[in-house]
């Protein structure tokens, strides 16, 4: 089973990377973009989903400063480029 973990800076914490990207976009002519945040994507194969949250709490994310979201590969439905699509856990 393939899991995808999205790690984000905790809401409310200053996110300098997000701010930098937010300021760079108008310079390229993309106006009206706001609330930009930059996080981290982790993908892994696991026997089942039972341990993924524990992995996040202990290593993959730092709960003091980051939030995470776990998605699991949808049942064999490939995405537009043949990549697996991910759904929220049931």
């Amino acid at each position: 089973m393939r899991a995808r973990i999205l790690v984000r800076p905790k809401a409310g914490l200053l996110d300098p990377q997000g701010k930098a990207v937010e300021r760079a976009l108008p310079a390229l002519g993309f106006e009206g973009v706001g609330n930009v945040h930059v996080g981290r994507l982790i993908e892994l194969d696991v026997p089942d989903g039972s341990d993924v949250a524990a992995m996040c709490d202990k290593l993959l994310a730092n709960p003091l400063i980051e939030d995470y979201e776990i998605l699991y590969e949808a049942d064999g439905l490939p995405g537009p480029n043949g990549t697996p699509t991910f759904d929220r856990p049931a």
Partner: protein
Amino acid sequence: MRIGVVRFPGSCDEVDALAAARCVGEARLLWHADRDLHGVDAVVIPGGFSYGDYLRVGAIARFAPVMESVAAFSGRGGLVLGICNGFQVLCEAGLLPGALLPNSGRRFLCRQVDCVVTNAHTPFTRACGEGDLLSIPVKHTTGRYHAPEVMLDEMEAHGQIVLRYAPGHNPNGSERDIAAVVNRQGNVFGLMPHPEHAVDALTGSRDGLRVFESMREAVAGPVAA
């Protein structure tokens, strides 16, 4: 006093830390893959980029074999000093409260800052006076100290905030101008500024030496300060 300085893959300040430690006693390197602390009286986790800072700063180093021994050593009351990346490692290991975030200004910083001693009763600051100003360099990208408000209030109440950046000197947006913290037991200390780079007048300041002198006094015995 014998100080052990840990070397991880990616450490870069361990040689300066050894030199600083040798100003107050003997010093030796400790290898990250070696659980043996070789009977040292105090441990320094130096600055650098341990394990490439992969995943998050300090996140992988905390699983090094030597860190098991460092955790046990600190549990027995042994003195542990974490500088810069070492501070990040100690936070990730749960030996110190809080976490370090990217600098508010996004840039790598390298400059001399003034820090105020706000608790001179720790084994790492007992050679200082309360309110003393220490001029020590910082050099980091991820030095913005953060902890939840409730935790910060609790730390303040227990004197765990040991150094603060002087007014106008907070380089990285750290909450409450925090530059250095100590654990509740008082024997694990972490700071972003680099006292090991400030032990010789040649490099502009000798104020960092007082951290190492404090540790020597503390190890020498419980003589009333």
